[in-house]
């Protein structure tokens, strides 16, 4: 992601620890950090969640407003996903319109939510062909210590699960929970040397060569993937990531309920 110089001593330290199967914060290679979720913290939003993944924090807010459907999907609600990497979150983040990192993050989160059918957009139709609910998911990195992909995905998913369609506000009937069908969970791994590590922290990301995010649904089927970074992954490494994404995805689904 962002480029900062890292001291060789720290790099060697991390590599040395990985040879022994452990990491700076004491985790094993396949361990996720602690997940803390708080929902409903933003009263002005129709759904919101703050997710902490170790020292990484992302806030997602949902706004649901009436709007015009797309011409080719006149009866479907509209989902829009955005992410901003604000200067507050890390010294390397700069103010301004979203750059390629922020865009990639938003699009990978969007893909998991969209392709899993998490939000039942067919139920977001108000008047066919004329008016539908537009569901905006906006995610902000508040504190960046690695793995913004999974933190953002979790924040978006938890915010959506807590969201209410504000129908009364617009004279469109009674308020109702946003229709949600499943819980897509992404699991990101980084390749450091020849080791794959789950849920990389910032330092680990800095020395990693490649990244793979795999999003599964409640049935353990694959809904979205994204390889990133200038390195490569072998077919065996891919299989490891797939296995872990299913296992860890199921565990996380239990944690966030």
């Amino acid at each position, binding site marked *: 992601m962002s480029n900062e110089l890292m001291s060789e001593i720290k790099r060697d330290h991390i590599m040395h620890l990985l040879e022994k199967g452990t990491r700076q914060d004491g985790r094993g290679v396949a361990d996720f950090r602690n997940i803390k979720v708080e929902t409903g913290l933003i009263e002005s939003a129709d759904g919101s969640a703050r997710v902490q993944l170790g020292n990484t924090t992302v806030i997602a807010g949902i706004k649901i407003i009436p709007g015009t459907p797309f011409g*080719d*999907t006149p009866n479907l609600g509209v989902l829009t996903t955005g992410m901003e990497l604000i200067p507050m979150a890390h010294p390397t983040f700069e103010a301004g319109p979203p750059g*390629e990192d922020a*865009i*990639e993050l*938003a*699009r990978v989160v969007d*893909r998991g939510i*969209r*392709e*899993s059918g998490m939000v039942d957009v067919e139920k977001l139709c108000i008047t066919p062909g004329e008016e539908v609910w537009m569901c905006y998911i906006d995610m902000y990195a508040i504190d960046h210590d690695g793995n913004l992909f999974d933190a953002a995905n979790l924040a978006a998913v938890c915010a959506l699960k807590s969201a209410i369609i504000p129908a009364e506000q617009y004279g469109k009937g009674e308020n109702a929970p946003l229709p949600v069908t499943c819980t897509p969970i992404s699991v990101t791994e980084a390749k450091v040397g020849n080791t794959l590590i789950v849920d990389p922290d910032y330092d680990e990301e800095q020395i990693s060569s490649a990244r*793979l995010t795999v999003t599964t*649904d409640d049935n*353990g*089927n*694959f*809904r*979205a*993937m*994204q*390889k*990133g*970074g*200038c*390195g*490569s*992954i*072998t*077919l065996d490494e*891919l299989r490891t990531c*797939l296995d872990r994404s*299913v296992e860890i995805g199921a565990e996380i689904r239990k944690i966030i309920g």
Partner: protein
Amino acid sequence: MSGHTDMVLVDENGMRIDGRTAEEHRPIRIEAGVLHNADGSAYVEIGKNKVLAAVYGPRECHPRHLQNPEKAIVQVKYNMEAYSVSDRKRPGTDRRSIEISKITAEALEKVVLTELYPRASIDVYIEILQANAGTRCAGLTAASVALADAGIPMRDIVPAIAAGKADGKVLLDLNKEEDNYGQADVPIAIIPSTDEIVLLQMDGNMTRAEFDHAIELAVNACHEVHDLQVDALKRRYSKPQEGSE
């Protein structure tokens, strides 16, 4: 991936609407060295996709703050022409093209010997003249040939192709209808000499068994695409040069 149709995409004999079997890719045509000004270039057709790629560099890196004192950077601009799709595409970069440019550059950076050109930039321009599903793979396939045509040292030439799922069946190289009304799409690019993956995306819905099958189809097809890339370069450099310098 989200559309619905009554169209039968794969019939009872396993035939697809364009007459292919599940494991067949569309006809592929690759030409190297098709532009005059660029240091290297390539033209690729995969079915109805028509894609041009051009390479400039290694040259001075702009903007300069992107310079890396240890190696060259690979910058990719993927761009769809306004008339390349059925509705007119609004010109200019959008979020999709920024993402595709980024992952394409990352895939190429693994094979280019960037350490030979500190502070330089290798600029790759991919123009989609006509789109019919699979443009990112066609673009990366073309870009690799263009890099080789530019004489840029590389560990290997990267081929790319997608596998996917339509009518519940795993298919190689989805066409537009299969992409629109199908259930999954998995673009992939590999380093042929090692089968390492340098680009991988997936969207849709696949079981583990389906995904494993899709990867197998795509990796095998990547080797076929690679043969065609090499063949294009051989044709370019074995015949007497016409037109360009």
